[in-house]
């Protein structure tokens, strides 16, 4: 089995979206997620020589990222945990039953299962996206996920509108086939 090679120059274009999506489902803050991804890349760079090539590059980066996220939560907890005032509604029997509606589960709140499924779905989408040719993936991502205008993308990538629609069409066909196979 050939060993996995490591090439930090391609990290951003190959993995940043996947890692970003992975992070944002856990920390729920764009700026913070960006910082964590960047920290991950730096840490990966630092410990490149420890990479044995047993796992794929992405798996390795994800394992670093997981540690970074845990570290982040540890940090905010140690600062905040001391200052936080914890309120408990039924500490004594006198006020029992007062705040009842606040203790009922919110039906519109996402359950853990939903979140989990959403996250897996996001990962599946990025897996499929990474199988597309680079140009198609880029256009599809910009158009569908970022929701940019046709015109903006055309200007950015220097292509005509009809060219863009052809690329979108190919990308969508490939994506639909891939998702059909892996998700539905």
């Amino acid at each position: 089995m050939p060993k996995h090679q490591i090439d930090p120059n391609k990290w951003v274009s190959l993995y940043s979206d996947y890692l970003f999506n992975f992070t944002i489902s856990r920390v729920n803050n764009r700026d913070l997620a960006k910082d964590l991804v960047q920290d991950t890349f730096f840490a990966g760079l630092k410990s490149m020589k420890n990479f044995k090539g047993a796992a794929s590059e992405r798996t390795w980066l994800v394992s670093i990222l997981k540690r970074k996220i845990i570290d982040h939560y540890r940090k905010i907890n140690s600062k905040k945990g001391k200052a936080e005032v914890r309120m408990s509604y039924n500490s004594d029997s006198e006020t029992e039953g007062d705040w009842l509606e606040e203790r009922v589960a919110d039906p519109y709140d996402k359950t853990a299962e939903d979140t989990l499924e959403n996250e897996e779905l996001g990962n599946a989408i990025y897996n499929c996206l990474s199988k597309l040719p680079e140009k198609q993936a880029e256009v599809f991502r910009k158009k569908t996920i970022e929701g940019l205008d046709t015109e903006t993308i055309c200007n950015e990538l220097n292509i005509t509108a009809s060219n863009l629609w052809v690329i979108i069409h190919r990308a969508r066909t490939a994506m639909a086939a891939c998702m059909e196979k892996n998700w539905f």
Partner: protein
Amino acid sequence: MSKENNIKTACHNANHVCDKTQYKEATLLEKIKLTLHLIYCRACRKYTSNNQKLTKVVKKSKVECMNSKEKKSLETNLTEAIKERQY
């Protein structure tokens, strides 16, 4: 021959409009034409349903990605760090 070509362009157009519809960029007339086409064309019906499924799934998953500006800054930071390590 010409008839075959006609059918081909019709489907081509229909798919194009269908793609546009996914991003809410098709005009009303185009949408009506697409619907009429879908009545008799099974292949395009299939494509349309797949396409709608894909849109729904992407919407539901709420995937997010960094925009190009954020990515660029990330990339420059990383290349700088790579350079630093080499020298």
